[in-house]
């Protein structure tokens, strides 16, 4: 037997966390059972690093944990009041930037933006609301696209590109006008080859992409985040997608 591949470690909030080369701080933390808040990250896809909720302090310097490779002996601070306050501010920014009317949204209770806000104890969006004019696209027979709720995590972009091989989604515009676009000359989702069975139809952390005729199926009280915090739910998810240990 050779040397264990997991003989390198970092510390996160005082805990010694093993990692293998190539793992990010986020990978190592999640594998160990430490939750780092995140919205644009999904371990099934290439890391993105845009929401910045997962920023941690590494040896006193802030770094994006979902994209930063773990390096031997990093001292990481994650669950600190200061970082959680800053993360709350980021969630508040996302809330005021779009039109997030939770009581009128099918995704309420299953929405990661909302759940992250609960986790970070957000009582109000705090900042001045933008109330932007955004498009709702119901042209597709099976799927709604409501840009009011898009937080530009690009998970649908990545899923459609990496898994579905379709490139149904992309990003255009710049700055505050950055927005999701779909792969058709008309700009309508109904004119693309998007299908409800696509991976990209099931990765939206908010209610921007919704499968039609599924709304409010789960009663209030039994939805994903009604009982469980996003930290618990996302740790369970990691367990599910963990590869089986290799016997060979």
């Amino acid at each position, binding site marked *: 037997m050779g040397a264990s591949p997991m003989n390198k470690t970092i510390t996160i909030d005082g805990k010694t966390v093993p990692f293998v080369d190539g793992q990010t701080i986020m990978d190592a933390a999640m594998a160990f059972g430490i939750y780092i808040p995140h919205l644009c990250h999904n371990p099934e896809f290439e890391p993105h*690093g*845009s929401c910045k909720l997962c920023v941690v302090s590494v040896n006193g310097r802030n770094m994006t944990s979902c*994209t930063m490779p773990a390096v031997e002996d990093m001292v990481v601070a994650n669950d600190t009041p200061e970082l959680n306050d800053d993360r709350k501010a*980021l969630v508040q920014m996302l809330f005021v930037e779009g039109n997030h009317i939770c009581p009128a949204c099918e995704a309420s209770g299953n929405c990661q933006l909302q759940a992250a806000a609960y986790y970070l104890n957000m009582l109000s969006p705090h900042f001045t609301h*933008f109330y932007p004019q955004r498009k709702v696209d119901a042209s597709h027979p099976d799927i709604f696209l409501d840009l009011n709720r898009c937080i*530009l995590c690009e998970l649908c972009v990545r899923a459609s590109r990496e898994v579905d091989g379709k490139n149904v989604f992309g990003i*255009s515009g*710049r700055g505050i006008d*950055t927005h999701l*676009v779909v792969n058709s000359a008309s700009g309508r989702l109904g004119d693309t080859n998007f299908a409800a069975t696509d991976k990209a139809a099931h990765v939206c952390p908010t209610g921007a992409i919704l499968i039609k005729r599924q709304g409010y199926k789960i009663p209030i009280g039994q939805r994903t985040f009604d009982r469980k915090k996003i930290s618990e739910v996302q740790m369970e998810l990691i367990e599910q997608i963990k590869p089986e240990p290799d016997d060979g």
Partner: protein
Amino acid sequence: MEPCEFPDIEQQLAPIFERHGRESSRLLQILLDVQEAFHFIPPEAVTCIAGHLGLPRVSVEGAAGFYSFLSLKPAGEYRILFSDNVTDQMLGNPELMQYFCNKLWLEPGKVSEDNLVSADRTSCTGMCDQGPAALVNGWPLTNLDQDRLDLIAELIRSKEPISRWPPILFEVKDNIRRADVLLGDALEPGVAIKAALERGADATLREMETSGLRGRGGAGFSTARKWSGCRASPGLAHYIVCNADEGEPGTFKDRVLLNSYADLVFEGMTIGAKVMGSAKGFLYLRGEYRYLLERLESILARRRATGLLGRDILGVTGFDFDIEVHLGAGAYICGEESALIESLEGKRGRPRNRPPFPAAHGYFHQPTVVNNVETFACAARIAAQGGKWFAAMGTRQSSGSKILSISGDCARPGIYEYPFGVSVKEILDDCGGEDVYAVQIGGPSGILISWKEFGRCISFEDLPTAGAFTIFKRGRDILQVVRNYAHFFAHESCGFCTPCRVGTQLQKKIVDKMANGNGTSSNLEELKHLGHIMRTMSHCGLGHTAANPVLDMLDKFPGAYEKKLKNLAFEPAFDLDSALETARKISGRDDPWAHLP
């Protein structure tokens, strides 16, 4: 289906495709040509380009939607963009733009009904020493005044092609006021390369090390370390990139270097190629300097013809290196090296996640060095005259000279080259800055200093700068200056990360509120809070520095905002009475209940 306005788009685009080939890295260059031909990027063209390059349509739409100089909607046969830098503002550009709009019955930002002309604002065009400035279809207009705008309006009305407009409108001067080692006696083309070849790649790199040369783009990373990192990185090819995306408002020294010292810059790139074993270089030229393109290409052609570029440079078998000029299209963020590389690849200029760094994974994931224009000019001088010679100038941590772009309130704006370590006071004396109150060093992303700090020195250890030096005399409204910068960052944020995309907008709104006299002490706290979030949580340097002017003002210029604050703890985020105006108009009401104090 919508009616197709360009049924024969394929035919129309054929010559553009012919010119650029099928590499996806040509996307941005193709889009620029389409913009020039059609005055916008028609949706049919987006589809057609996607097909031609084998890209998803969303990628083409994504790139076209990112850059300010590309427009997905008709922008008029003549598109006038007034430079919105604070120096242009101080020289009266907002009033001139209004004058121009009134003259042509235009609404700012909207194209005329006959689709002939539109007028809007754009970030600093780099003509701060000869403003007010503007661009017409990408060509720079300088020294604007009402007479010139009358003439321009007339030329537009009579649909005169821009190539036939009087050259005086487009005159751009170098305005070199103080020259030192870079801008002094010209180096004969080839001399530096010869010296590098005689010395060899290893020794040349050691000279760079000895020189202590640090990047002139502002961050000041050791050039030798960058070069050796790239050199040591394995790859299919190594690339040399010259960053001429001089977007920092108030900076214009690269424009002068490229206009009059391009050989020195290309020489530096070629020496870099020798050191790093590169065969291919790019000059990323900001869209605002598009007017320099033909001149630069002719210099490159001359260098090829004289054996200074191309195959077997100076007769050395196997020393092959060539340089391609790649145009930007109006995006400050592309000055960030990884965003620049994305843009070189034809994509949206979005800064990458780092690591990996460009030295190992740059252009198409190959080892790439990105250096500032001035850095390459310095490298050429070092190759010719030695590292020790260079290190003897300046200060211990900042060797050599620095070219400053001086503008604002002074008698002699222009280009000044000093050895590092020069004090602000000395500079102000030289350029005729009298009764100066504040200086913005290094542009909005730099540092705003007050008259109390004029003893400080230009150097990496004290006042690092990419070169902008913007002067404000006593009586200038610093809050208006900061407001201009806050608008700049909000406009230029790439939109990728939450803190910068949203934070720059929120910051802009609060500074506007203060400038309108509705700020309160709680707004000051909010600005500090936003500044903290942007500085510590953002993805790249743009977000990290976007709060600098605001925080410097809060710290050093209380007089600029205190008298404008309301003597209340809280004031609504918006003007209540104005928010009733629409409903008053609709209902025709003007009674006391239709108003709020």
